[in-house]
């Protein structure tokens, strides 16, 4: 095979194997689908953690049960924060469609504040649980709980870092095609985290308290 190509090159100096089909696609045309497939693989990570929690969630090792630990008022506020941040991200997207850099940045910043509030409440909750002695080492239930909810919280943290980075990029380059793509990808990431949170508050908190 290689000798054939070498012969061609020797006989005809302009022969080139440059992939010409690339010209038909704008740069980043597959980014959205690729990012979606990443989110689906992330979904599998969460599914595994949910399965762990479902299997181990009843093993309290004579320690505290969900009923003794979870404060649903706090979780309701947390859920509200994430839901508000979802719709404010939607507003940022609408501003981007209108072509307003300032409007996009404003709504992204508001989204970031709601995300930060969510994270602050979660950290307060974790710190409160650890203070009560309900640490990840206490029982299989608590290990599974901290892993599942902590992984979600870690995703929100990285989403916030990404959001701040995006604000800087928007400031520098405005609404160029690359930035629009980034805003769309973060939108998918952010809404995806809200979808995961629906599972968390239903399976972990609401069903936990019901037992």
């Amino acid at each position: 095979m290689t000798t054939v190509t070498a012969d061609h090159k020797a006989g005809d100096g302009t022969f080139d194997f440059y992939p010409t089909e690339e010209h038909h696609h704008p740069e980043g045309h597959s980014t959205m689908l690729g990012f979606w497939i990443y989110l689906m693989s992330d979904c599998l990570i969460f599914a595994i953690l949910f399965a762990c929690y479902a299997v181990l969630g009843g093993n309290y090792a004579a320690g505290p049960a969900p009923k003794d630990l979870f404060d649903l008022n706090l979780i309701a506020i947390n859920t509200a924060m994430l839901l508000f941040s979802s719709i404010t991200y939607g507003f940022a997207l609408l501003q981007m469609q209108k072509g307003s850099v300032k409007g996009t940045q404003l709504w992204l910043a508001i989204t970031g504040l709601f995300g930060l509030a969510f994270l602050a409440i979660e950290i307060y909750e974790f710190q409160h649980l650890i203070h009560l002695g309900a640490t990840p080492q206490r029982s299989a239930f608590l290990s599974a709980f901290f892993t599942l909810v902590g992984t979600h919280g870690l995703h929100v943290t990285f989403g916030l870092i990404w959001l701040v980075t995006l604000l800087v990029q928007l400031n520098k380059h405005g609404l160029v095609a690359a930035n629009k793509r980034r805003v769309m990808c973060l939108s998918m990431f952010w809404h995806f985290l809200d979808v995961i949170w629906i599972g968390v508050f239903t399976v972990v908190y609401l069903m936990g308290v019901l037992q």
Partner: protein
Amino acid sequence: MSHDTHHDGHGHNEIEMPHATMRDYVIGFILAVILTVIPFWLVMNRPLETGPTVAIIAIFAVVQVVVHMVYFLHMSPKSEGGWSFTTLIFTLIVVVIMLAGSLWVMSHLHSNMMPMAHDAAEPAAIGQVI
């Protein structure tokens, strides 16, 4: 890579993005609020027995996931030429097999284990979680 796209006009190079509307977000938000408030209210005030409450909050969670997918993530079977929907269905199949399989296998394992001292108090603990 980047020099390929520069000499084409700007309008042609815009990648296809789902068109979001205010209407979608408002409908999605209102539905999400309703589907969140009712489960919280049911669990905090306990107007129903545990069994029906679990069933209702599970159904509401599934419906809310669909609402988020449609109104916030702008999913449709046609987006990205059907590929995003295909990967979603594939992921759902894997998730269902894994969740159902884990629970089934582990509950059998649990009921076939030699009872230990603290197990006596919680024979159905695994089944209760889901």
